[in-house]
């Protein structure tokens, strides 16, 4: 299984736009963490993750998001997660992370 990560810096909004496609689990998470930290090293800014094509996440993937948010919060930046699938949403709800991350749904 794979997790594809597309990144782009939106100059207008001043934030990273990240599209995730695939599965965020114990195997794919290291690559994701590495990539995100590289991007933040390059430019520390808000991050908007589009989860339209994120099919799966578990505690390891959620842990990576928590770690990322921690680093960004120190710099007063925010992590926004949008367009997530119902199964991903459910995990955010039961872990209470829906109150920690900024979640946006577009219909």
């Amino acid at each position, binding site marked *: *299984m794979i997790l594809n990560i597309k990144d782009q810096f939106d100059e207008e909004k001043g934030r990273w736009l990240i599209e995730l496609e695939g*599965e965020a*689990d*114990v*195997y794919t998470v290291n690559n994701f963490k590495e990539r995100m930290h590289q991007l933040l090293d390059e430019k520390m800014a808000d991050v908007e993750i589009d989860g339209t094509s994120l099919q*799966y996440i*578990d*505690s*390891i993937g*959620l*842990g*990576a998001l*928590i*770690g990322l*948010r921690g680093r960004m919060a120190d710099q007063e930046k925010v992590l926004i997660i949008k367009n997530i699938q*119902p*199964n991903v949403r*459910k*995990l955010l709800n*039961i*872990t*209470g*992370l829906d109150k*920690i991350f900024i979640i946006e749904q577009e219909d």
Partner: protein
Amino acid sequence: MKGNNTIYKEENNVEVRDIISLNLPNAPEYVSIARLTLSGIASRMGFNIEDIEDLKVAVAEACTNAIKHGCGKDRNYSIEFLVLKDKLRIEIIDGGKGFDYKKVKEPDLTKPREGGLGLYIIKTLMDEVQIFNNQKNCGTRIIMSKNLGES
């Protein structure tokens, strides 16, 4: 992987219809195999999509624990899927040092940290969860079940 079409055993009046066994290396790249196997079995049993998603996450969390607390790269852990009349029971056994699950704290959801959510997620998503440390304090065995057609 092996299937078994005959009634395997009676245990507390529980009729085990089929057993499917998987033995996986202690390596992250194979956890998706456990998820795929689970999806096949659960959809065959008639679980709905939401329940299958719950089961996938619970199995992956247990596999991740087995890998983390297991005996190292050259060892395997095993998963047994027990198809019962009205539920799916999953047993995951690793040969690791084990951990004192009684000391595993409930996560503080207001102060998220990177680890410690796995067991909490399993307990939330499954109907029954039991955890045992194997004899001689070596290895952990987790047994979890989800009932068919409750949600």
